[in-house]
């Protein structure tokens, strides 16, 4: 599938999505509330994005950005979906019911960035201990004992 065809498909589902083609892959910027609609369409529609190969979050100090890398084992093309979240109360719908790999990746983002994933089946800390305070991968995280600033 060409980028044009994917853009057409997404515009039909979400007219408000904006595109950016400067990078290696097609970037799609959406609102967090639209994620589930788009994800379901990408998975079930002709794009057949059945492989979520990277799920992460970026802290921009003013807001957080969720970054999803989707790919299709049928068409072999990849796209990037991004959604900006409020830094004080970050919350977004879970994708673990559509792609099972999202369950672990979302738990990692939850403990490292503090993003709440709504309807997640098991949103607990995965890597850090239960008593750990703070979100280590945020830019303003301070740990005077274990962190050495260069």
């Amino acid at each position: 599938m060409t980028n044009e065809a994917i853009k057409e498909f997404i515009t039909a589902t979400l007219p408000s999505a904006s595109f950016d083609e400067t990078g290696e892959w097609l970037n799609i910027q959406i609102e967090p509330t639209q994620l589930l609609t788009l994800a379901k369409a990408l998975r079930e529609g002709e794009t057949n994005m059945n492989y979520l190969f990277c799920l992460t979050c970026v802290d921009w100090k003013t807001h957080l950005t969720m970054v999803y890398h989707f790919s299709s084992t049928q068409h072999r093309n990849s796209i990037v979906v991004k959604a900006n979240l409020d830094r004080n109360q970050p919350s977004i719908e879970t994708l673990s019911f559509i792609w099972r790999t999202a369950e672990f990746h979302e738990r990692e983002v939850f403990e490292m960035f503090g993003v709440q994933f709504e309807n997640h089946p098991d949103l607990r800390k995965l890597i850090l201990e239960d008593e750990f305070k703070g979100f280590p991968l945020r830019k303003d995280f301070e740990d005077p004992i274990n962190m050495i600033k260069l």
Partner: protein
Amino acid sequence: MIQETEIIKDTTHLGDEGELVVNMGPQHPATHGVLHLVVTLNGETIKKIEPHLGYIHRSIEKMCESLTYRQFIYVTSRMDYLSSHINNLGCALLIEKGMQIEVPERAKYVRVILSELTRIASHELWLGAMAMDLGAFTPFFYAFREREMITDIMEDTCGARLTMNYIVPGGLMYDIHPDFQKKVKAFITQFKSKVTEYEDLVTNNVIFQSRTKGVGILSAEDAISYGCTGPVARASGVSCDIRKLFPYEVYDKVEFDEVIETAGDSFARYMVRVKEMNQSIRIIEQLIDNIPEGDFVGKTKNVLKLPKGEFYTRVETARGELGVYIVSEGGTTPHRIKFRSPGFSNLSALNHMAAGSKIGDLMATMGTLDLVIPDIDR
């Protein structure tokens, strides 16, 4: 209260009460590292497996945010320590792509040979350790005999036997050892004559076959949904070899087959890895005599600055697809770096694969996933 002499008439609820939670790990001989599995059992049957991670979490992603683009590569050798060259290669490729650095042909050839040697060494170690998990002790020595030759080659050329740091942005750190080609050829001869021993000892072993066939089945759809890559997904019939799909370095110039099995059980995963070793030998054979003369490192600036933007590369490690995602703001250090490690996604499928089977089969399922814990924890 039931008296001991009384006959228990209603046996339907016994199972629910007989649920048992067993902590497997963090220190357990079969986890090969500090992996903690909370296994819920009903008698001998596994009901649920919950992995608890983080015992060797070193926060590599956070660490890399304060390291320069030359420094952070060395940390990645400590992620999946059995594929350290390939981890380094993934990072070097990203920087070369972002800064448009030309890499000399000589470096490209050596990088691919080293990647394939690493893959063989990793699969050898897995073969020995996995057979030992299932109770066969001899294969361990057979596998380490060949692996030893590779570690010797690495010691000569890269200066280390494990956690090698040899691939740098632009090429290689220094030129290959004068004996490199001779020793690699000696290894190929040795490996080819000995690989049939694995077939006799392990593949055709009735006990091994009955312990792995039909155990821990993963379907192709589930493998994709769980994000499984590498031999785990290829054993389920998913074509996902990055070397074939998105060739990097000189993989498009060499002939090799992507090994795919369709059974999806532990035995299929075993077969994929054994056959992959032969394919790696095939790749090395095509390259070892044709390493071009010339520079081993391209021209790079002293201080590397990645342009503003986002970059993603993927390479095929011994465990699957390693993705390196860097968000750059144009400075000397990355703004955010994420390693999409193959082990992390492969582990997430463990509960799905093992639930419903017997606890004794967990060893076979987990062993063939080939988990390396530092790769999962990062």
